[in-house]
């Protein structure tokens, strides 16, 4: 997400709005945004309702065995159609901003 923040202007030019989602409640996300300097939208799904509906729930993987979202990225157009998706096989390997930006630029 640091890479996304760094290239936010480029995402904007490409007409793509980055939105991050996690189980963290708004205050925790606010803390993160403040500390990491994120200015894009960060949404909270504390009950993991959306995360569960997207089949991204990673049961017991959070602190104290809490359920969290597995890392995943979706590029979704205004008619809600998925244009690109990325599921990592290793939590340490995350989609790079330039990869996502290249996909964003390919949108018409």
């Amino acid at each position, binding site marked *: *997400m640091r890479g*996304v923040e760094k290239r936010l202007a480029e995402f904007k030019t*490409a007409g*793509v*709005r*980055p*939105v*991050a*989602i*996690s*189980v*963290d409640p*708004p205050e*925790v*996300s606010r*803390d993160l945004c403040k500390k990491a300097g994120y200015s894009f*939208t*960060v*949404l*909270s*799904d504390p009950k993991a*309702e959306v*995360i569960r*509906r*997207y*089949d*991204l*729930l*990673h049961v017991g993987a*959070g*602190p104290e065995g809490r359920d*969290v*979202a*597995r*890392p*995943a990225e*979706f*590029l*979704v*157009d*205004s*008619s*809600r*159609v*998925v*244009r*690109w*998706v990325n*599921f990592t*096989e*290793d*939590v*340490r*390997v*995350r989609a*790079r*901003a330039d990869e*996502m930006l290249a996909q*964003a630029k390919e*949108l018409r």
Partner: protein
Amino acid sequence: MPQERQSEESHSLPPVMPDAVESRRSLDAWWSLLLALAAMLCNVVFLVNPPVQQAIPWLSLLLAVSALIFLARGIKRVFQRPRVGRGKILSSIVAAVSLFLVSLVLITFFHARALPTSAAAPRVGQRVLDFTLADTSGRRISFDQLFAPAADDPQATAPKAVLLIFYRGYW
């Protein structure tokens, strides 16, 4: 050098070799430690999110396995020549540290890859479900509202797409 030791070696190794063998044995432990440290360092590389990062978990695994091989070789040499003197304690400590690091690397490797399959997750061409979630100020935002032009910029146009980034959270 005790008489007993020399005679014991005489049928397995040439009598002039013990020092060389011993230094090789302790080097095994050091090599193992070096490889284990390199395997550990692989995890730091992820912080910079490099282009070839998909290969890094495998590199760390390879380094960890190589560290184990050197460790096994070192231990085998100790058992072959149980009565070695100098350097035994130090190389045992080095070997133990190496084993500890290798265990950490292996645990991390399997833990990091134990992800749900997400078989029912939306795929390319599929339509995602609508949602409404709170932002950092607690304001509820629906999926469609994400496509509204930025309010703080009068020249802003509506985004063509949103990039949904699901992440594990901040802890």
